[in-house]
């Protein structure tokens, strides 16, 4: 069912994406990520010596600090920190820099819906900028379910308020195979068939959830392409 959204987008259409890396001088890596009017700034400091009290010293440790646009950090922000930390830990190679802590600071510049996926994408871009070893990139998306049963991707603040349920989904990026000439092809299931993080709010049926995952995965192809294009532009500027 084709529905009209207030900003004129189709249900599966994402808002315009923008990403800038290496924008701050003091952090080891930084990035700003915006989806429409939602904008997040991410900074990465580290790896620094030592790990936190309850962390495994034989692996790299990550800490996430969420800075709201204004006011004090609340319960929701604490939850976002935890989700982001777990997501980062699952995409990074933790064995490379053992007994170190890498700090990821997320500064919300403006919130116009889909804030957590935007923050995850920003953190991922900042980690790449800092040269932190990663298993793969993560691309995050928000998928919403309205009262009349239709699904929309990347909702803005107004749409989020009207929705009965929504899911934050994080997928591995669509990867390329750049095997050297004469090398045999690698078998096995592609990494992008997996799912890294899934957070749901509200009530939705199992079928609706799987439809969310399906639509979300389809949309990650454009996000992955955007990531790659952005990195290519950055590397050509540096070169």
């Amino acid at each position: 069912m084709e529905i009209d959204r207030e900003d004129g987008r189709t249900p599966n259409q994402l808002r315009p994406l923008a990403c800038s890396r290496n924008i701050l001088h003091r952090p080891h890596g930084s990035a700003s990520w915006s989806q429409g009017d939602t904008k997040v700034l991410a900074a990465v400091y580290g790896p620094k010596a030592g790990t936190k009290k309850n962390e495994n010293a034989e692996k790299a440790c990550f800490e996430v600090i969420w800075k709201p646009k204004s006011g004090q950090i609340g319960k929701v922000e604490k939850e976002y920190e935890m989700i982001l930390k777990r997501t980062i830990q699952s995409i990074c190679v933790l064995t490379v820099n053992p007994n170190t802590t890498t700090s990821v600071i997320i500064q919300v510049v403006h919130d116009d819906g889909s804030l957590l996926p935007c923050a995850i994408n920003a953190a991922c871009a900042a980690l790449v900028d800092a040269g932190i070893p990663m298993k793969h990139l993560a691309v995050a998306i928000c998928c919403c379910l309205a009262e009349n049963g239709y699904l929309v991707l990347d909702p803005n603040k107004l749409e989020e308020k009207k929705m009965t349920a929504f899911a934050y989904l994080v997928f591995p990026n669509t990867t390329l195979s750049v095997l050297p000439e004469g090398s045999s092809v690698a078998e096995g299931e592609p990494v992008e068939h997996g799912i890294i993080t899934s957070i749901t709010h509200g009530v939705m049926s199992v079928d609706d959830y799987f439809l969310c995952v399906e639509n979300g995965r389809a949309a990650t192809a454009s996000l992955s392409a955007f990531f790659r294009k952005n990195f290519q532009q950055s590397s050509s500027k540096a070169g």
Partner: protein
Amino acid sequence: MTTGLVTPGDVIGKATEFKAGKGAYVNDATIYASLTGTCRIVSPLPESIDQRAIVEVTGHKAHGPIPETGSVVIARVTKVMTKMAAVDILCVGSKAVRENFAGVIRQQDVRATEIDKVDMHQSFHAGDIVRAMVLSLGDARAYYLSTAKNELGVVSAESAAGETMVPISWTEMQCPLSGQTEQRKVAKVGN
């Protein structure tokens, strides 16, 4: 040989044909990129047992060096106690660190012989520059370092007169200004 831009997760080789170098990792006999940059293949050293070519990712922004088990570091002594000396790691290999890494040289790791007779105050003084090897990651607070080799120990020290001392034996350094000698665990300087 180099290829275009790769991002983390891109397949860059098979473990049966290549070895994973910097910016790459192995999973299920497949080599993946772990950094963003250009992929290149490096020929193995002639004396290397494993004659597979090394595939690595270069051209990325690298973070500062991090002490690893077995790496030789340059450190400054900050505090000397009866059982150990606290140090700040300044360099890992030939590269300066970007972050502060704390280290500890325990009494039993100062020298290889007569380890129970070691006097920490006769081996190191605060401000000394030492060459040491990383024994282990230690606890969350500090790396465990060792100077139990001839080439490890104090490489530079200041006398009470404020002059840089010169080594005169394995255990002594002398101030060129006053001629006064001080006890140290001196590192053998290479030719």
